[in-house]
């Protein structure tokens, strides 16, 4: 097996280990998430399979043992516990060490044996600890109305369906519903449809009354409370129904009939009956007076919104997974483009002196193309800072356990792009800042409680265009 292939495998294995780590850390907050369990299992399965193929036998053998345990987790025989996650994270670190240090040879046999023993014990006891459960702080009826909320991590972008019906005298309180819709729009990606069905004929219409309702489909990462905050002044003057219909990119593509039934705008029986007539469903439902054109338009708008969000999410995923170019090659490209820009400047200058129209036109075209090439090339080096944030999650978890502190990490602006070199150079100072936050900025839970602070400390990492900061 040639060294180049082994290098490619090592690179791939590192990516898989990073995915494994992310999945494990997320599992800590959502232990029942079957997708995450599957993701962790697949990462180990691939490392095992490819490892054996490229001569990393020890890696393959060790990973096989852990994969077997995760197979049982996947089948529901072993629950996800803190012990399981800690052990698997340690195992992940050992695999990384084996790959880095000695080309797959087991360099720290005692540590390996210790972990294998601990996993064996875990299998025998069927999970030893009580399963991780999600915090439940009195599930309100509103949460029940949006069951997805309980499964969604705080930073996830979620698509909500919001139906607004205002009291008809809402204007008499100086409230302008359109401003509330504008505020809602600032929370994320938004589609709105007005339900104008109750607007009466002009001769009996009272212009001081509100006859319109609105259906909004909103994809936001700010949570359901941010949506409720928009309506804080009008909560007793309007009926607001908020349903989470899926996390970004995971929303099911639904047929118009399904959306209308979910919204309780039509019954399942009506849909089945009308479907037999082989005409567009929305058209038939309106024709038969089962629902109004506005309600159908609104359901169509939701369908389009979800389609758009799914496509965007897919493009984003594909975009990230398809870039794989050695950094040195990019540096060479950037240098070449730099030289090209200099030559192009000389060409433009010469062309301006020669007074030849044709040459002038060519120089202008070269200038435009060079500018685009330069911008695009520099853009290739831009990567989202989210991966770096992900690494800190592990650091914070390990340090807080070591020091007996309870710390939650929140992030914002993971999609902010920075030059690859800048991101690499930010790593060490950020590690230093985070360590300082944990060491000196956040007290142990007992001390925090005695000071009237919440038991958990929070480290918030936020990236915005122009600045990056960390605070404890």
């Amino acid at each position, binding site marked *: 097996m040639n060294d180049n292939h082994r290098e490619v495998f090592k690179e791939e294995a590192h990516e898989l280990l990073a995915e494994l780590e992310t999945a494990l850390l997320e599992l800590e907050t959502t232990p029942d998430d079957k997708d995450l369990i599957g993701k962790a299992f697949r990462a180990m399965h691939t490392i095992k399979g490819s490892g054996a193929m490229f001569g990393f036998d020890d890696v393959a053998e060790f990973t096989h043992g852990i994969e077997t345990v995760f197979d049982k987790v996947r089948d529901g025989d072993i629950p996800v516990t803190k012990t399981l996650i800690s052990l698997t994270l340690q195992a992940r670190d050992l695999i990384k060490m084996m790959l880095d240090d000695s080309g797959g040879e087991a360099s720290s046999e005692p540590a390996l044996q210790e972990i294998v023993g601990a996993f064996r014990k875990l299998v025998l006891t069927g999970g030893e600890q009580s399963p991780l459960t999600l915090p439940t702080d009195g599930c309100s009826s509103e949460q029940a109305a949006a069951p997805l909320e309980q499964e969604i991590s705080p930073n996830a972008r979620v698509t909500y369906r919001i139906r607004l019906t205002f009291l008809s005298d809402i204007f*008499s*309180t*100086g*409230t*302008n519903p359109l*401003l509330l819709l*504008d505020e809602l729009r600032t929370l994320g990606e938004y589609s709105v449809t007005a339900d104008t069905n109750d607007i009466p004929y002009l001769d009996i219409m009272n212009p*001081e009354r509100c006859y319109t309702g609105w259906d909004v489909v909103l994809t936001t990462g700010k949570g359901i409370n941010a949506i409720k905050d928009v309506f804080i*002044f009008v909560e007793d003057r309007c009926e607001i129904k908020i349903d989470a219909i899926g996390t970004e990119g995971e929303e099911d593509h639904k047929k118009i009939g399904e959306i209308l039934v979910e919204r309780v705008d039509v019954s399942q029986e009506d849909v089945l009956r009308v479907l037999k007539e082989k005409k567009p469903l929305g058209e038939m439902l309106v024709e038969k007076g089962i629902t109004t054109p506005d309600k159908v338009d609104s359901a169509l708008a939701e369908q389009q919104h979800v389609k758009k969000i799914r496509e965007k999410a897919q493009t984003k995923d594909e975009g990230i997974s398809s870039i794989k170019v050695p950094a040195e090659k990019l540096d060479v490209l950037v240098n070449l483009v730099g030289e090209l820009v200099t030559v192009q400047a000389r060409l433009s200058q010469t062309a301006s002196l020669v007074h030849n129209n044709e040459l002038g036109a060519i120089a202008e075209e070269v200038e435009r193309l060079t500018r685009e090439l330069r911008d695009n090339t520099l853009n290739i080096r831009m990567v989202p800072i989210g991966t770096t944030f992900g690494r800190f999650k592990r650091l914070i978890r390990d340090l807080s356990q070591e020091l007996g502190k309870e710390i939650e990490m929140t992030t914002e602006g993971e999609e902010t792009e920075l030059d690859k070199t800048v991101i690499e150079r930010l790593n060490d100072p950020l590690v230093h800042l985070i360590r300082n936050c944990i060491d000196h900025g956040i007290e142990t839970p007992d001390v925090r409680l005695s000071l009237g602070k919440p038991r958990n400390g929070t480290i918030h990492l936020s990236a915005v265009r122009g600045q990056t900061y960390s605070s404890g």
Partner: protein
Amino acid sequence: MSKRIMTVDDSASVRQVVSFTLKQAGYEVVEAIDGNDALSKLEGSGIHMVLTDLNMPNLDGIGLIKGVRAHAAHRFVPIIMLTTESQESRKLEGKQAGATGWIVKPFNPEQLVAVIKKVLG
């Protein structure tokens, strides 16, 4: 054109702080010392919003809200009440009288401007 806000409070210091904050945020300000003063200044004032304290001599905030809602030219103007935590029942009274929203004292300038933007757009 900048929007014009009427601030109504019997405390000169509160009026001063509120006026300063609003002017800094680019609004024009009309000041009134109580409900009666506010109603007398309403006609032809061209105001876009009223920001009123609740406890005031002569005519209090609730009376002012009812007065504004009965005023032909200004009955749809948004009205924000300045309340305190302990005034929950007064807040309810204000809402029933037709207030648009409220802000709880003490508040900082950013919170005040955020509430105004929420209501005025």
